[in-house]
């Protein structure tokens, strides 16, 4: 096994260090070797860069073709995939962007949103809760209600106003503006098969996040009112049920 392993090691190193002569020594003299080798090397890089190009379109738009090309090349070189199932490739891209572009701190949050949209697409399916079930619960039990969310749920909290740039991009505007330093909150969720991305107010985010963490409705409501005393519980709950955020409801027996 030594020769084959040596060859594969050399091939791998050659791809990532761009030094094909090492490999040439391993397999002997081959005519036009570098040109031939580069076909493989280019395939590896371009296919993986294309995965990132497809999964992070807004980051690409913000950075422009040249910078995105550069950062994806470096990412592939530093973080090649560890599995042949590329559905999971790109998970570390957000952190990489944060280090690579410190002057664009919002890029990390945007890339996390883009990653979440991809990731939850492939998570376990779920069946939304039938809202009628809530109406059969006695009113004195409401405070103790706890809710289950779909497996495919992602809460995003950012120090930047991401909604405008996100919506501009979805409307295919030619230019997107850098977001302001105003906090924004959103929920990406996939009940059934459709990925939904909803922008939330701070108090709505707090309320839903607490429910997601398994806190009873009464406690989640209380936390939300700390942020905004006028928090509208019935409206938020109504939206959550209409948008199919929940898969199950139970009465908590704590306390």
């Amino acid at each position, binding site marked *: 096994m030594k020769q084959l392993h040596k060859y*594969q090691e050399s091939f791998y190193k050659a791809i990532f260090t761009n030094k094909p002569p090492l490999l040439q020594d391993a397999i002997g003299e081959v005519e036009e070797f570098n040109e031939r080798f580069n076909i493989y090397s280019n395939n590896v890089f371009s296919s993986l860069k294309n995965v990132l190009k497809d999964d992070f379109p807004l980051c690409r738009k913000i950075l422009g073709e040249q910078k995105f090309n550069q950062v994806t090349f470096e990412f592939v070189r530093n973080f090649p995939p560890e599995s042949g199932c590329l559905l999971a490739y790109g998970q570390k891209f957000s952190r990489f962007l944060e280090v690579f572009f410190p002057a664009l701190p919002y890029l990390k949050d945007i890339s996390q949103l883009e990653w979440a949209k991809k990731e939850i697409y492939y998570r376990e399916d779920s069946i939304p809760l039938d809202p009628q079930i809530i109406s059969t619960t006695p009113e004195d039990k409401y405070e103790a209600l706890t809710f289950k969310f779909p497996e495919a749920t992602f809460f995003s909290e950012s120090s930047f106003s991401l909604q405008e740039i996100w919506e501009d991009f979805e409307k295919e505007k030619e230019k997107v503006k850098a977001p302001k330093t105003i906090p924004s909150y959103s929920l990406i969720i996939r009940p059934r098969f459709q990925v939904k991305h909803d922008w939330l107010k701070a108090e709505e985010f707090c309320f839903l996040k607490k429910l997601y963490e398994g806190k009873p409705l009464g406690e989640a409501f209380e936390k939300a009112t700390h942020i905004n005393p006028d928090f509208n519980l019935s409206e938020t709950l109504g939206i959550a049920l209409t948008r199919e955020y929940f898969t199950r409801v139970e009465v908590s027996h704590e306390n």
Partner: protein
Amino acid sequence: MTHSFSSLDTSAKVGVSLKHCYYEEVLEDKPNINFFEVHSENYMSEGGSSLAWLEAIRESYPISLHGVSLSLGSTQDLNKVHLKKLKNLIQKIDPFLVSDHLSWSIINGIYLNDLLPIPYTKESLKVMSDHIREAQDFLSRPLLIENPSSYLYFPKNEFSEPQFLTELVKKTGCKLLLDVNNIYVSSHNNQFDPNAYLEELPLNCIEEIHLAGHNRDHKFYIDNHGCHVQEEVWELYKKTLKRFGRISTLIEWDDHIPELNVLLEEAEKARKYQIEYGNYETAA
């Protein structure tokens, strides 16, 4: 899941690559095609609409699962997690074929997203054979092994590619997926006779044929699955049918994906040639 092929059914069978953009059309129009093929890795998920579409389409068509990342030619152990995912998918879809490549792509836990070439030596034969046997045992079914497009050759090869494939069939009981476009592309790049290649392969071991287009913009031809099957490849396909008889044939298209009709027209062309040239009784 009632749709499958009988081993006694020797009628012409053609299929096309199934892409996201075709799902609705396939379920609504039910095109006249014998099977669809997907890349296994794209459906190794816990859920999601792609998997649901595939399961729905499976109700009406046989499916072939074509993999690109078992990395059977790697010196490192097979990825058990990946194998398990493949097995789960097989249990969900009940494919009529499961295939992967004569290549390697994983080393030291790193996955290089390409079908990298292996030297055709006794050492490689042992590695490949052991891995094919292990995968087949785990999956409880034979694998089809596909000849890849090649852009370099190894002067110290101890086997030709068809000899190497023949040895794999003998040692493991695997079957072959013969990519006629890949033979043509490799023969151009590595200067060998594609007809002699066909002659070197034994009869009765090929269970699927792939046809696709390649790019000729450079000195070396590049297998890009992004255009119509070239005329020279159709000619080689006719010779393949004459030698091996009618074999399920797939039109592969992975880049610059056109309307489904374009693939269906190519598939009809393949069906016509199967009827014309692929008579079992006259096969050599």
